């Protein structure tokens, strides 16, 4: 069965420091992986996706993610965190019929 795991409930980072939000996946076949962000009282916003090609994927708001097949990981990264990056982040994989399977979510808190 397809699944996505986000091992950290919360990640705390100081503003200006690099951030990493972890995601591991378990899928059969080629993985189609996504990151979404949810700000308070708002819907999900698409950040980036990996379908095929370069393992380093660049997305919105300066975020990037690295696909690592051997470690079955797709960690979200940003070189320099902003307070405004504080939000709930979801990793997801796309299975059959375009259904998205979401991880549990990681709350990112960036402190001034």
């Amino acid at each position, binding site marked *: 069965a397809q699944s996505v795991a986000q091992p950290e409930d919360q990640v705390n980072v100081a503003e200006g420091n690099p951030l990493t939000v972890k995601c591991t996946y378990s899928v059969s076949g080629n993985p*189609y992986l*996504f990151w*979404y962000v949810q700000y308070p*009282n*708002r*819907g*999900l*916003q*698409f950040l980036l*996706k990996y*379908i095929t090609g370069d393992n380093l994927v660049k997305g919105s708001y300066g975020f990037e993610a690295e696909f690592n097949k051997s470690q079955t990981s797709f960690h979200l990264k940003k070189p320099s965190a902003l307070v405004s990056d504080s939000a709930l982040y*979801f990793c997801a994989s*796309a299975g059959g*019929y*375009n*259904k*998205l399977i*979401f*991880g*549990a*979510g990681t709350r990112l808190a960036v402190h001034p």
Partner: protein
Amino acid sequence: SAVISQKPSRDICQRGTSLTIQCQVDSQVTMMFWYRQQPGQSLTLIATANQGSEATYESGFVIDKFPISRPNLTFSTLTVSNMSPEDSSIYLCSVLAGPLYEQFFGPGTRLTVL
């Protein structure tokens, strides 16, 4: 991309009543999805709604409880029937509107059942 609106944005309902949530998209899309996000939880897919066919429900969700309409390529409704406090959640619609599996989400409907 696609711009998606949902009505209502939030509601407080009494146990045993029903609420219909509307989802409007600014472009024609084939696939629409309805998700539930329970308090402090991740998103769970309720059903897939394609125009011109019956909605396909995920395990644990049934048509009698969550009837869905998809009358055209830009609109869908989800009804939460005979509500109980356990139905208190955020309900989100999404559409497949980008190249290769890219889904866009509406702002969500925050439902509280008393």
